[in-house]
């Protein structure tokens, strides 16, 4: 499974100062949430998606697949807003009778649902821009600069580094088990899965000891301090950050006051 991080390393926007990309993504995210307007949300999706796909170089097919991930959750969530129960049948645009009440879709509910759906999708698009153009290592260096506790940043960094080792080891164990019919039926499968998980935990524990010894051998004194990477500063991005967001703010104000 190719993940967003692989595309982040391949992105054309990879070497831009991560703090700039971070601000761009989060500021636009904030504006999108604050605006709570259908047009603004759609614009955010297009702008952020466009930056990731056309400027960054992420394949469009992959980007669309990524958008499908929150879709299931989103649809269920908005469905509960769109569908209402009321004894007053006149408010519905479409409804079915259940006993004494009516279950259906109201205009207000539909509008609210669509607004929420697009607002969430817009926010997701902002975060996808960040994760598709900025490798995890760079995001962590930004968090560190924002004075997130060093311990937290180090833990995130180690988890990210070793999750691949963990998945790989788990996969190898499962293949070996499968080759000995460990997953021939559901009951056997659960048993195999359980012993795999226990084995994985023990291996992780042993590995963490070995890593500690390795770190000690290179002078570890409690902090995983490394040298910072150097990046390019993009004036284009700074201009875009201010420009896009100013535009969206003004647009929102116009649309809300119906000027």
């Amino acid at each position: 499974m190719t993940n967003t991080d692989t595309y982040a390393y391949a992105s054309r926007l990879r070497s831009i100062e991560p703090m700039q990309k971070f601000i761009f993504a989060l500021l636009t995210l904030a504006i999108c949430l604050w605006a709570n307007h259908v047009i603004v949300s759609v614009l955010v999706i297009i702008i952020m998606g466009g930056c990731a796909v056309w400027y960054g170089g992420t394949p469009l097919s992959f980007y669309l697949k990524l958008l499908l991930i929150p879709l299931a959750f989103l649809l269920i969530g908005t469905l509960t807003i769109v569908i209402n129960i009321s004894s007053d049948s006149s408010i519905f645009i479409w409804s079915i009778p259940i006993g004494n009440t009516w279950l259906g879709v109201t205009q207000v509910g539909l509008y609210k649902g669509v607004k929420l759906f697009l607002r969430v999708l817009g926010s997701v698009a902002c975060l996808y821009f960040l994760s598709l153009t900025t490798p995890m290592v760079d995001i962590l260096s930004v968090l560190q600069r924002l004075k997130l506790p060093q311990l937290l940043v180090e833990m995130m960094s180690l988890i990210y580094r070793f999750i691949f080792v963990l998945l790989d080891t788990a996969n190898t164990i499962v293949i070996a088990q499968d080759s000995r019919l460990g997953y021939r039926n559901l009951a056997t499968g659960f048993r195999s899965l359980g012993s795999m998980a226990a084995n994985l935990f023990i291996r992780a524990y042993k590995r963490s000891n070995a890593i500690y010894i390795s770190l000690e051998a290179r002078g570890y004194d409690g902090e995983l301090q490394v040298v910072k990477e150097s990046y390019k500063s993009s004036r284009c991005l700074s201009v875009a950050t201010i420009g896009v967001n100013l535009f969206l703010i003004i647009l929102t104000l116009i649309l809300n006051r119906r000027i």
Partner: protein
Amino acid sequence: MRESVLKLEDLNFKYPDGTHALKEINMEFKRGEFIALLGSNGAGKSTLLHHLNGIIRPSSGRVLFEGKPVDYSRKGIIALRQAVGMVFQDPDNQLFSASVYQDVSFGAVNLRLPEDEVRRRVEIALERTGIAHLRHKPTHALSFGQKKRAAIAGVLVMEPQVLALDEPTAGLDPKGVTEIMQLLKETQRELGLTVIISTHDIDIVPLHCNRVFVMAEGRNILEGTPQEVFSQSQILRSANLRLPRIGHLMEILKEKDGFAIDDIPMTIAGARKALKKL
């Protein structure tokens, strides 16, 4: 006469579970040597290596660095670990950072060097290990051989005097083995390092090493030049080791087929010379 850089005197080590891993070890490593620590699995090679940079303290006996007993205080350990760099067998245990460049810089940053110096050393180390083109790659995307090089680079940045490697050729393909050994040989020559490798890859030993120590069941049973050590085939076999393939062939030709060979050669070049003389 080469000066002693590391010395183990009457060293014993027992693991907490009672395993007597090292018994009465007396070994001396001299400056500039390329040393092989031979032994079967469980002979105590890794345990011995861990004594060299203070990861383990002996149960009895002592470790001397440059003639002086190791100072196990905080300052002493820091100085020892700068001077004795250790590369472990599994590079995945050594590369903790997701960025190659940052992982290599770790050792130098811990030496509290100024940033320019750190960057300079990282560049040199990356060039020397031939992975400069991988500096911006994530570590999990590297092949096994590339990870091994990154691990070595991470130790070279500390500019050690001794480079100790635990099974450096384990898991590498034939080309990888040759490349790593060449890298080590060149680095040793250019920097004047003392290199200690623990291995049970017999065939590379006569090609690169000028001193060999053989371990079995926690004891040092044989030491000398590769020629001296490999002439003791009985002792080697009792330690679950063997002669280099070439050496074994030449031994059979000499003893069973009556070929007129003087000193049994251990390398292809040596065998060729001996056979051409016949």
